[in-house]
């Protein structure tokens, strides 16, 4: 089957050069809107690379978070940017010489070349086969409560990383809220086509989130992919012109936001009080506990990502001065 190897080799070289070229184009293109389009294409090619490297969980996360949400965040920022200050130069590509003298401008390039040479040499010198921790993971997969090794590592073997990481998301939202309000952005009301698209697509997204959450036990999927799908539903609603009413935000917003992190801490306290190690689930309960944690995390991640796209604190009685 050498044609398959040849085809795969062509695919690899095409993707490899494509990634580097897209990254260079995105970072060097004069107009920002073009940079974002190329960055979305870069995220998409990245997802195909994850598929090629048998990392299907990451492909799901990359499509949802890398290409989808990050693209939407960048676009929303660019739109607010042009609204916030008038004289954004369309092609602000003028080289920034400022106080950096000509010689100094070459310093980063030389430095980068040295670092690159060192890294390439060390990557090439790595042993061709190293099983890493895959042996230990397979050995303990039975008692971890889930069949998908990645979910097992994320929620059980290295559950503490996920605990801290959910707080990173909450922290980002708290940080965005503490920065105060943004300029009011006049966006045209959604027309009938967009309205119907939102009305049809949002329940599909919510169903998909539940499906990915459930699929995460056996195959690729899990809390982060499901949360990102919920976040995409929130983004779509905001694009279709929906804004959170004052009543909505007062209690539900905070309760759902805190659901994931609070659930994690309660489970942690429960395991400590029960005399076990931190986050040590009894093998028979592991499956249900992981699913419980994942559903709480999905809700919180979805709402946090939608909140990050919203970009400011909803007026929920706590005045929103800027």
């Amino acid at each position, binding site marked *: 089957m050498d044609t398959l190897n040849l085809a795969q080799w062509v695919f690899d070289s095409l993707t490899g050069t494509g990634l580097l070229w897209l990254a260079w184009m995105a970072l060097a293109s004069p107009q920002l809107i073009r940079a974002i389009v190329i960055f979305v294409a870069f995220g998409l090619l990245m997802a195909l690379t994850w598929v090629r*490297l048998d990392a299907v969980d990451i492909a799901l996360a990359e499509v949802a978070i890398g290409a989808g949400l990050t693209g939407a965040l960048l676009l929303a920022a660019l739109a607010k940017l042009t609204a916030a200050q008038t004289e954004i130069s369309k092609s602000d590509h003028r080289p920034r010489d400022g106080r950096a003298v000509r010689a100094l401008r070459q310093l980063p390039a030389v430095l980068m070349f040295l*670092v690159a040479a060192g890294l390439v040499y060390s990557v090439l010198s790595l042993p061709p086969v190293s099983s890493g921790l895959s042996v230990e993971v397979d050995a303990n997969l039975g008692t971890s409560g889930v069949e998908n090794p990645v979910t097992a590592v994320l929620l059980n073997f290295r559950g503490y990383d996920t605990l801290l990481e959910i707080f990173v998301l909450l922290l980002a939202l708290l940080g965005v809220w503490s920065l105060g309000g943004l300029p009011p952005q006049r966006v045209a009301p959604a027309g009938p086509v967009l309205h119907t698209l939102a009305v049809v697509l949002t329940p599909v997204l919510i169903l998909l989130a539940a499906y990915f959450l459930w699929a995460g036990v056996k195959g690729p999927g899990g809390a982060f992919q499901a949360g990102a799908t919920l976040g995409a539903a929130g983004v779509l609603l905001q694009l279709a012109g929906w804004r959170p009413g004052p009543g909505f935000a007062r209690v539900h917003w905070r309760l759902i936001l805190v659901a994931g992190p609070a659930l994690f801490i309660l489970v942690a306290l429960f395991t400590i009080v029960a005399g076990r190690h931190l986050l040590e689930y009894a093998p028979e309960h592991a499956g249900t506990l992981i699913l419980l944690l994942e559903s709480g995390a999905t809700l919180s991640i979805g709402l946090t990502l939608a909140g990050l796209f919203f970009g400011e604190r909803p007026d929920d009685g706590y005045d929103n001065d800027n």
Partner: protein
Amino acid sequence: MTTETLYALVGVGLFILGLYALFVRANLLRKILAANVMSSGVFLVLVALARRTGTVAPDPVPHAMVITGIVVAVSVTAFALILMLRIAMKTGQTELPDTWSE
């Protein structure tokens, strides 16, 4: 040059490209793009080398690390974008006033 080393080297290339653009580009939005490219590069190195287990299934621990990394990257990007907007509102520019000020 197996698939793993090819993609690992592409990852290193992305890391260097992102790092260089982060230094040289003045526009804040482009710096944030560069930061994303940089983190994608590191994650690519991590996952590419995870395929050297000699068996069909790759090593799941790097995959879990990358998913954690992607979520951290998106939260930092979201915060950086809003911070950039606040700076644009206050100073009317999307660049830091003086990149070489001590």
